[in-house]
């Protein structure tokens, strides 16, 4: 089972598709949660998920906007999609019949 941050990272990467890389994923997570996402948490989680085979990373092209430095590109694997779906289904099931707004 994925952790909350792992799920957020996989979902952001899946949403970004071919444009998924470190800074973009970080921005997407921060926009969705309203919380700061540290680079340390992002990159160590990327490594962990890659070791589990849930995503694949490689070094992309360098841009002038980044001071001529390369991006770490991310792609969610089939196994990653499966794990994220399982997490999402579990959260949906456990949330059924619960209204947080009412309490």
């Amino acid at each position: 089972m994925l952790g909350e941050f792992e799920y957020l990272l996989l979902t952001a990467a899946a949403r970004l598709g071919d444009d998924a890389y470190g800074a973009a994923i970080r921005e997407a997570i921060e926009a969705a949660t309203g919380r700061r996402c540290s680079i340390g948490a992002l990159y160590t989680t990327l490594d962990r998920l890659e070791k589990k085979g849930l995503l694949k990373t490689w070094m992309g092209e360098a841009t002038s906007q980044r001071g001529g430095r390369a991006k770490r590109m991310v792609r969610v694997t089939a196994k990653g999609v499966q794990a994220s779906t399982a997490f999402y289904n579990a959260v949906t099931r456990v949330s059924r019949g619960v209204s947080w707004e009412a309490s």
Partner: protein
Amino acid sequence: MSQFCWWFVGILSRGLEPDERDAVRGDLAESGASGTQAFRDVIGLVVRRQVELWKDWHPWLALAGLVGVAGVLLSEIAFQFDGEILLQVRTYWRHGVHFGTGLSVGEDAVYLVLLFLALFSWSWAGGFLLGALSGRATWIAGTLFCLVSFLGNTALRGALSMSVLMIPFLLAAIWGMKRGYRMRALQFRQALLFAASVAILTSLLTWTSGWYETVRQVWSEGAWQPIPWPRRLLPLATVSWPVAYLLATSSRRCWYEYKGEQR
């Protein structure tokens, strides 16, 4: 302040793998992070990476075996060497004569040259093994090794000025660390040659240190009991353990390569 933070970010990020360093610095530039934010982010990542590295047993072996055992002994032997060199230099400077140890100038010189060469070799071997075992954790283990080996004893005994004489050994250790970090293991022939040289140096040192024991016994008219050679050899052999480890790892690698070629 911001410029200082960015400068420090540059230094800190050297603790990351080159690809990761590039990606992280690029992300920071793209997001327009301030110097303080960048510093906080990079230090957070470096600490996390270091914690991961220290979960492995290799850096701990380097810390215990090299800093704890070899480093302490190296410090003691180097301190004795520095003391003897200073004594000779000071006596010659003030009185124009050789300090009377009971041995001839030539015998004293042979002992001190052998000791210098052995200390240089031990420092290099310690540094090499530390770099090979610790990988990216070298800068923590390496700093501790250098502090313990080349500053510890002089600081504890209030003779910090003597640390100047430790510079050649400190440089040898840093050189060894750089080579060890890059190469991980020596070629078998190099390792064998190096181990043989250190074994010869260690044996010669054990033998020549016996000259002083004989002189002391004669001076004291038999009251001084000479330290037997196995007890003189023990610390020298212990400080040489990284050399034995280097030879063992090179032999193992050579054996696997040989077996691989046969298949």
